[in-house]
Structures are given as structure tokens and as C-alpha cells.
């Protein structure tokens, strides 16, 4: 450290106090999660001090039929909600980006509202809504997941719209005109010129929608019908009965699945990028 050139006035990252600060904040952010993961292997029911390594609680979580069902349901919800949010959000972004129409500013502002209002207000509003319109409860699987999916789409697609619109802001409309001049139809132009440009925005938006869905607790909590098992609600009731290694094991699995899904989603876009660079 001492032998190197002196720290420049703007090289904040090389200052010791800032490095210590960063370290402290990252310890604060990661230590609880690391402890949670480590203690999912703890051979102790009370799970306070380390008693020895075991994978028993993973086996137990895997044998917990309702936990498995809840897990599957949450993944289905995230999957369907991501697709719907991406499509609806991207279309809305295109409408706001491309057209001038009466009420445009109003729609623009209104579509940002689900992003800013407290989640609990939206949660209770959806609870009342599904109750008052007489949405049938006790529907067979997977229809019983519909209210949760509807809620997730309602708070996710505005985020997608924001991301896609930011991407479209850099689009040169003369490309579309060139495409049409060269004889492509409206549809061909949209599909071969506009959509490929939009793609990074679509991927970023869908990743965000998936994260929002997997991260959500409040909306799921208020829109789950009495017989519908979802992962957050299931874990919530387990936590209320006591913090056992089984909860840690189930949480660890969700953390790993979420990170894997994200890595796959990021990887998935890579080949396109390479192809684009080569072509």
C-alpha cells in the first residue's frame, strides 16, 4: 500500500475509511443471509448454537408436501406473471412512446401509481376487490392462483413499461421508415426492426418482473385464498410457529433457485448478443 502512488483526491475507493465503511455495509447486508444458509445445516431443533452438520432439514423440507406444493405454486405464479407483465408493460411503453393521444399524460402518471403507493394499500384493495366481485374461491388448481397472478401483474407491468420506455428513448425512428421504404409491411417492420431493438429492455424488464414476483410477500398474502398455498405465506406461518432449521432450509432453496433463474435469464440473452456482434 505504501509503495504505491499516493491516493488521488478523487480516488475515494482507495481511502481506508471508505473501504472500511463499504466492508461494514456489505457485512451488514450479507451476514444475516449467510448465517441463515449456514444454520440450515445445523443439527439442532432450536437452532441457536451450532451443534453439528446435517442435511436432515432439507430432507424434512422436501418431505413437507404443503411446502413443496407452495414452492411449485410460487414458481408458476412468477413464471406466468413475468410473461404477462412483460407483454402488457412493453405494449404500454410502445403506446406511450409512439403515439400522441388525449389523456396520454394521465395514463403516463396513472401507470406509475402502482410503483409508488404503499404495497399494503394495494394488497387490501385487491383483497376487497376479489371478495366483492364474488371471485369464486376454492377453484381447482391452477385456477386458484389467478388472483395472485393478477395482483402480481398489476404491480409488475408498470416497472416493465418504465424500463422498456427508457430503452425506446434511444431508438431512431428513421430505421422504421427505411424498413418500410424497402418494402417491409408494418408487421414485418415491427417484428424485425422495433422488437430486436427493444430486446435488451424486454430482458431487463422481465428479469425485474420475475424478481418482483419472487420477492413479494404483501400482495401474495392478501390475495391468496384460504386453500391456496404459496411459498411466502407458508414460510410466514412456519416462522410464526418458531424459527426452525427447516425454515432456513426452505429459504435457502428459494434463494438458490432465484439466483439460478436470474443467471439462466442473463445467460440466455448472451448468444443473441454474440450473434449481433458477429453479424
Amino acid at each position, binding site marked *: 500500500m505504501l509503495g504505491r502512488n499516493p491516493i488521488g483526491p478523487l480516488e475515494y475507493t482507495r481511502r481506508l475509511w471508505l473501504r472500511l*465503511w463499504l466492508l461494514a*455495509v456489505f457485512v451488514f*447486508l450479507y451476514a444475516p443471509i449467510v448465517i441463515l444458509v449456514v444454520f440450515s445445516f445445523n443439527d439442532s431443533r432450536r437452532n441457536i448454537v451450532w451443534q453439528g452438520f446435517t442435511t436432515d432439514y432439507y430432507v424434512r423440507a422436501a418431505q413437507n408436501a404443503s411446502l413443496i406444493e407452495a414452492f411449485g405454486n410460487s414458481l408458476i405464479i412468477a413464471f406466468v406473471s413475468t410473461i404477462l407483465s412483460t407483454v402488457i408493460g412493453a405494449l404500454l411503453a410502445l403506446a406511450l412512446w409512439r403515439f400522441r393521444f388525449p389523456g396520454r399524460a394521465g395514463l403516463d402518471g396513472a401507470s406509475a401509481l402502482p410503483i409508488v403507493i404503499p404495497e399494503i394499500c394495494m394488497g387490501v384493495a385487491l383483497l376487497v376487490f376479489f371478495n366483492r366481485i364474488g371471485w369464486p374461491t376454492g377453484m381447482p388448481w391452477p385456477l386458484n392462483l389467478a388472483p395472485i397472478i393478477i395482483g402480481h401483474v398489476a404491480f409488475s407491468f408498470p416497472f416493465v413499461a418504465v424500463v422498456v420506455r427508457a430503452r425506446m428513448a434511444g431508438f431512431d425512428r428513421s430505421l422504421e421508415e427505411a424498413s418500410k421504404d424497402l418494402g417491409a409491411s408494418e408487421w414485418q417492420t415491427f417484428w424485425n426492426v422495433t422488437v430486436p431493438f427493444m430486446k435488451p429492455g424486454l430482458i431487463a424488464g422481465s428479469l425485474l418482473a420475475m424478481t418482483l414476483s419472487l420477492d413479494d410477500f404483501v400482495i401474495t398474502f392478501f390475495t391468496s385464498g384460504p386453500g391456496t398455498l404459496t411459498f411466502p405465506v407458508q414460510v410466514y406461518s412456519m416462522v410464526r410457529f418458531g424459527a426452525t432449521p427447516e425454515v432456513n432450509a426452505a429459504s435457502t432453496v428459494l434463494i438458490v433457485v432465484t439466483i439460478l433463474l436470474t443467471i439462466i435469464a442473463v445467460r440466455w440473452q448472451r448468444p443473441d448478443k454474440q450473434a449481433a456482434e458477429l453479424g
Partner: protein
Amino acid sequence: MESWRAQPAVFWAFVLPGALWLLLFFFVPLGLIWVLAFGERVGPVEVEITWTLANYLAVFDPVYVGLFWRSLWVATVATLVALIMGLPVALAVSFAPARVKPILLLLVILPFWTNILIRTYAMIAVLRSRGFVNFGLEYLWLLGKAFLMPFGLDEIVMGERFEPLTLLYNNTAVIFGIVYVYLPFMVLPLYATLDRLDRSLLEASLDLGAGQIRTFFSIIVPLAKPGIVSGIILVFIPALGTFLISDLLGGTDSLLIGNVIERQFKAANHWPLGSAMSFVLLYITFAILALRAWLISREEARARP
């Protein structure tokens, strides 16, 4: 941009799904609880809309006013702590060498990929009386005791037994939890503005003789104001409405407005009162957003010559 009349079919295909979804599954539900807030409970689940103001008046009952105050206070403290913690982090990330920057950004974003319930649950093992913070403190206590032993001072200074701090099931735990869960919301907008900052202004300030601290407060903070405002709003609004964090980490005396709203809709089954409370919370949110819009427009007016 073109008029929607140029291609009405395309326009409707683009705009309808989003607009309808927003109307049906956002505005109609909110409208329902807005109406419900003027209702009276006439049975265990039946509510009659009598346009009474009783529910809103009930919100101004001292008990609930106290609750709103506590929520505002907890959210304010948590937001300030997040700001103080997050500002140096954002500064470090935006001034980091290009090689390290994406890694640091990823480290800030990564906790988002963990469900909020799991993150809140993870705090329990850290904060409880037999949790890791107390284990750490006990270790320090034992070290201190061993150090003082030769002087015979250990019993006098350190006491006979280690008394664990009560960190869980109180307001401190709730503030801790909020900061923990929402810190990335603070860092990201701060980073976004600091990253666009014109560095020559900082160099000019330092060249002209201002110290690092003066430069920080007179140049960096004013220029980062839009990011600071966004960060504050992104942390404050969810903190104000939280019910999960206070439910799991708070004690009986640290109920927040979110917990009481949840109770009205689940256990207590008093939907009209819960609806009125939700709308008071919404009005507070709108007031904050309006304040922000006003601040921005004032800033813009000042920027124009």
C-alpha cells in the same frame, strides 16, 4: 410521435391491455376501498355504505394518531440511517475503477433476489437475545473481563454476568429491519446521480482550496440532491406502510400503521375502518409525492435564468 388516429388499430392493441389491467385491477379495487371507508359494519361481514365519516373520525382517535406518529417517526429514522449508511457506499461505487464497479453494484443489488420475508426472518437470528450481535458482544465482554482480571477490576467494571441487549421485539429492531431490507433502494438512486456528476466541479473545488469535507457538503450533496430525494422517497414510502417487518421484528408496543390495517382486514374484520386507514396512508403518500414534485419544479425554475 404520431397521432393515434394514424393507426388506430395498432394504437388500441398497444394501449388497451395495460390501460384495462390498470383500471380493473388497480383503480377499481382502490375505488372499492375508497367507498368502503364510508361504510358501516352491519354484520360480521356485511357492510352498508351510508357515507358516514365515522371511520375517518375514528382514525383521529388518539390511539390511532399515536400509531401514525410512531409509523412516521420509525420511517423517518430508518430513512435517515439508510441515507447516512448509503451515501458513502454510493460514492464509493460511483468512483470505483471500471473493473470493480459492476461487482460492487451487483453486491448492492443481490439482496433483492432474496424474498423480503426471508431477509426479515434472517434478522431474527442476528438480533435475538441469543443472537449473533449478542454473541459478539459477549465475546468482547469476556475479552474485557480477562484483560481487567489482573487488576482485580473485572467484577467492578464489567459486572458479574453478561447481560444480553434486548435488540429484538422493539422499535430498534423494526428500524434495523427496515434499513436492512430497503438499503439498496437508497443506494441505487444515489449511485445513479453521483455517477453522472461532473467530476471537474469536484476538482475545481479542491483546487480552489476547499477541503474534502467542505467539497462533500457544498458540491457533492447539492448536486446529488435529486438522487437523495428519490432515495428518501423510495425508502420512506415502503417503510411507512410496512407490516411484515414490524410484525416479525417488532414487539407489542411497536405496532405500525401497516399492522393495524392488516388486522382490520384479517383478524378484527373491520373493513371500513381498515379502508379509511389505508386511504389516510395513501393521502400521506400523495402529500409526500406532491412535495417532491413541488421541490423539483422550484429547482427547475431556479435553474432557468
